[in-house]
C-alpha cells in the first residue's frame, strides 16, 4: 500500500507530515550546528575555513531551506497548540494554510536579505 493512500490526502494531513518532517530535519541539523559552534572554541582556523566555504551559493540555498524548515516547524507547532488549547475553530484548513504561508514568508524575507 502506498504511504499516501486516498484517505490521507487532505490538507491537514499534509500539515501534520510537514510539521513532523521539518522537526526531523532540524533534529538532524542540530548536531552539525553544534559541531560548527564548537569550532569557535576548539579550532578558530577551521571555523574561518568553514565560514569561507559557506559563501558557496549551494550553502546559501540550504540556509534558505533551513529557515523555511524552522519557520514551518514553529508555525506548525503554534497551529497545533492553538487547536488543542484555544477554543475550537472550524477553519482548520485556513489555519494550516496560514502556517504554511508564514513559513514561506520567512523564507522569502531571508532570501531577499541573503541574495
Amino acid at each position: 500500500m502506498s504511504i499516501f493512500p486516498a484517505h490521507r490526502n487532505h490538507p491537514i494531513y499534509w500539515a501534520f507530515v510537514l510539521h513532523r518532517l521539518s522537526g526531523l530535519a532540524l533534529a538532524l541539523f542540530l548536531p552539525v550546528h553544534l559541531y560548527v559552534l564548537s569550532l569557535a572554541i576548539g579550532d578558530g582556523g577551521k571555523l574561518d575555513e568553514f565560514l569561507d566555504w559557506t559563501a558557496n551559493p549551494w550553502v546559501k540555498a540550504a540556509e534558505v531551506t533551513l529557515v523555511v524548515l524552522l519557520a514551518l516547524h514553529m508555525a506548525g507547532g503554534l497551529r497545533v497548540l492553538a487547536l488543542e488549547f484555544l477554543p475550537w475553530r472550524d477553519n482548520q484548513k485556513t489555519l494550516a494554510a496560514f502556517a504554511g504561508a508564514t513559513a514561506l514568508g520567512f523564507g522569502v524575507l531571508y532570501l531577499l536579505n541573503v541574495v
Partner: protein
Amino acid sequence: MSAMDEAAKTLQVDIWRGGAQGAFQSFTVPHEVSQTVLDVVTYVQRRLDPTLSYRFSCRVGMCGTCAMMVNGRPRWTCRTHVDRIADDGRIAIAPLRNFPVIKDLAVDMTAFFDKWRDAGARFQPRDGAADSFANVDPNSPARRAASDAIECIGCGICHAACDVVSWNPDYLGPAALNRVWTLVNDERDADPAAHLAPVAGDAGCHACHSQQGCAVHCPNSLSPTASIAGLKRQTLAALFRGQL
C-alpha cells in the same frame, strides 16, 4: 450501440473477497442513474455472486452499518453516489480499514464498540432524574458543544480514517472519544467530570495527533478532533485542579 456507449453504461467494480488475506475480484455492473455504491454491491450479490458478504440495514444514512473503503476512502456506501466517486468507470470496494475482516466486506465491529465501553461512554442518570425533567438551556455553551458532536451514527468511518488507531491498537479512537465529549457536556449526567478519567490515559484523548482524518471523512460532518481537543483541555484543567 457502439462499444464506447456500452462501456459508459457499465462499471468495472473490484470487490475484496476473503478475510484479512484475500484479493480483489472484478465484476462488471450496469451503470444506472442515481446509483449508490451500496446499489452496486447489492447488484453483485443478487445477480452475480450470492456468496458475497456485506452489511447494510437502513439504506438512508441513519444506521451506520454499510461503511466500506471506496476507492481508498472510508464512506457510507448507501449515500455515496457512483457518479461522484467512480474513477474512469472503476470502483474499488474494500472492507473498512482498522477493523478485523470477517469475510469480504463484512468487518467485526466488536472491538470498536468495546472501546466505547472502555471509554466510559455511557450516560449515567442522576438520582431522582426520573422524577423531574432536566432544564437544559439549548444555548448554553455545554449544550452547544454536545449538539455539535451528538449526531454520530456509529458507522466506524472515523475509526477507519484514523492513523493513530492503526498505530496503537489500544487507542480508544475518535468515535468513542467524541461520545464521551457529549457526556462531559451533558448536565443531566450524574457526574460529567467523572467521564474524564477513563479518557485521560495513554490510549485516551492525548494520543490523538490531530490529523483530522476523522473530521474530513465523517459522513455527518462531525469533527471528532474538535471533541478530542475539548477533552484534552478539560483533562488538563482537571489535572491542575487535582481531580485526576
